[in-house]
């Protein structure tokens, strides 16, 4: 077998966020949650959204943040930014679904949420949050990059399982699955 990983290209999708254009309407949260409901659009709940707008109107703080990687442990150092004289809260710009906060977790199960760029079949022209942001605070861009096969993105299921492993330990999780299988 060929030991060198195969080269191939992958479409990198980015959403450019312009915080100055955000009016804090949370339409992005609404539509993201609705798009990911199953069946699709059957319910809405911003708490399940994979984009969250950090809003503090009276301090004029509006930061739409996308759910990024899940992390099992919180980081040891913290970022604190001051921009244009506005001091942002700790972790304000962080995308991680992390144990130190409730952001980017399913409200009932606590499972981590991650933006999947509205993956769907057939693919959308633009992610839903971008389509619903009429203020152009969110702008969709894509370009191609060369990647190695190992870089394949994690699936949602893998992500969920990983967080459960972190929470309960692999053994306990396997036992539980075995038990459920027997019952089923």
């Amino acid at each position, binding site marked *: 077998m060929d030991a060198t990983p195969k080269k191939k290209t992958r479409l990198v999708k980015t959403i450019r966020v312009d915080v100055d254009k955000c009016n804090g309407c949370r*339409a992005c949260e609404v539509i993201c949650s609705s798009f990911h409901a199953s069946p699709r659009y059957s319910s809405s709940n911003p708490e399940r959204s994979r984009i969250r707008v950090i809003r503090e109107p009276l301090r004029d703080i509006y930061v739409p943040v996308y759910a990024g990687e899940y992390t099992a442990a919180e980081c040891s150092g913290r970022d604190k930014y001051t921009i244009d004289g506005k001091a942002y809260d700790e972790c304000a710009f962080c995308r991680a679904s992390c144990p130190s906060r409730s952001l980017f977790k399913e409200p009932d199960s606590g499972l981590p949420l991650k933006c999947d760029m509205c993956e769907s079949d057939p693919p959308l022209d633009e992610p839903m949050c971008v389509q619903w942001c*009429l203020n152009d605070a969110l702008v969709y861009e894509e370009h191609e990059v060369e990647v190695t096969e190992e870089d394949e993105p994690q699936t949602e299921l893998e992500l969920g399982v990983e967080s459960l492993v972190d929470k309960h330990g692999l053994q306990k999780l396997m036992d539980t699955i075995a038990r459920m299988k027997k019952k089923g």
Partner: protein
Amino acid sequence: MRFAETGFNLEVDLSTGNIERVETDPRWTEQHLGGLGTSSRILWDRCPPEVEPYSEDNLLIFAAGLLVGTPAPGANRTVVTTISPQSLFTAYSMMGGFFAPELKHAGYDKVILRGRSPSLVYLWIHNDKVEIRDAAHLRGKGANEAADLIRAELHEPKAQVAAIGLAGENRVRFASIEHGRSSASRLGIGGVMGDKGLKAIAVRGTKDLNVARPAEFMELCNGALKYIGVREQKPVPGVMPILAGLGSPQEMKLIDEEWHTTNFMWGNSRTRRRDFWTKEIEEKWKGTQESVRKRLVSCYNCPMKCGATISVPGEATYMMKCFSKLTYTMAAYSDLDFGFRIAQRATEYGVDAFSAPQVMAFGLELLEHGILGPSDFEGMPADNEGRFFWLLDRIVRREGIGDALADGTYWAARKFGKAAEELAHNNIKKHEQLPLKLGMLNPVYFLMYCTGEKSNITQIEGQFPQAPFATMAEREDFVKDWVQVPDDRFKKYLLDWEFRGERANPTYPTVEMSCDIVDWQERMHHIDDALGMCAGLSSFPLKPPYHIHNYPAFISAATGIEVDEAGLTRIARRNRTLLRALNVRRGLTRDDERPPDDHWKKRFPDLEQKLLDAYYKFKGWNLRGIPTGKSLNELDLGFVAEDLRKRGFPIDDDTAPSPQPSGAAAEAKAAS
């Protein structure tokens, strides 16, 4: 499963501290939708006419409309309903922002408050966990300030808070309920909240809200959103800038205030300053507005930006929208900088930005006319702006002269006698109106001013242009894509409407056409208020995304309740009639249905009476403005008929003669 609504109300008795989660009757949704519709039904059942506004028996209902929390853009209204301490009729006041969707996601369509707490408290709703918490430490705090303190002590930065300020605590009869960029201001509902000993409601919700037919509903929502985008690129030509687009009047965005400042009245709705708006003023106001305005902000799930964050140097930041930008400025004959400054304090105190400035200007007139003496105003600074700040402080604390003024122009004037009553000239049903005095009677506006149950013109006007277009070409252009009209005859009304001659105000639109137009506009407002849709995307602006032809599909897809245009019209009529019946039961008479005597210079008493006669008849009411037994039965409001009958209202006599109009002053003026 319930769709679009949660199917639960929260019942809170502030006297006993009892809290219950109560399942609602789905048939009520079919009959009234939700929001104002079902809240009116609750008031009808539980608030008999003897109930005093400031009493344990009065209800204060926070309702999230039926579509609130669904992805329908702009469906975010909280409708607050109670008995008004000012008009003594039903008050309903709405606020945008983020409160109602959060309430829906917490699992409730309404919070129904009754009783009176022995000490100041606030209500904390966190999904299924609901508690009444001590608010002693929040007494006297500003509404925004209190909201921040509550979020901090709950460690819930995402909690949405509706709070009162000092004005509400002291039962000012025009106190508001504040919620960030929005407020429910009109008719003194903040005073009722204060009377109940409730400083605030904080809510946080993380539950799902379902819709019945997801794909269909989403297609409609996408369509509405798309339309908004297109419509925003196409302002209506030939009307004032603030009437050209969607949303609430875009006064935070626009600098051009020629229309308001030269058409609306200054002082206690006294002086028109036709030459006010000059290049210099425009430059100066532009500087002021741009320096204090930090950002244009919207409500939940809406692409418009009707509000703004305002930071005046030296004052805490606050948010503002709409015409409140000018009400203080114009009442004090001052400038925009003063307006932004005093509005900051007024927002924290929580007062209605329509009423409060007029009340203060009225107070100063009492002094100028010698009805009150300098001793009543002891300590008042000499400078104009300082006097307004001073009066505001007295009013919200009910100190000295502020105690009487805190009751609003109507009630204060009653204390000071006939001469004072003449100065309180801008009321309908005891409630301060927009400061507007015009020349020629407009029959459509006459009817809306008279009969609107909220006594607030912006809550009934909207879809039909306020004035004719000058040329036929403009009219034809306007009606070309006017899909929102319920029927093509409305296009004809507009095409034929002229500035002068036979087909001009006051006799055109004709009496019948006027009834028809008012009925349409009012129908749309009633639908919005039941759905929790922002009027700024529906009943208020010209050519909005939501209208009578697409609403049935939205409602059906969201709720699973099949409804068509005729059915929806019937629901709106039912809700409108129920609200009328509520007020009739509380003593509303034809004689109350009068615009201020000086609203138009040219008045036509005979025509006005004809208009009222025809409108009442059109609505299925008798000549006293009371719904007839027959029309109540037709609307499945038999229980209302029965109650009114028992109380001796002449509902089965639709020939009851038109009572003599006692608008004698109006007649005298018109005659002179």
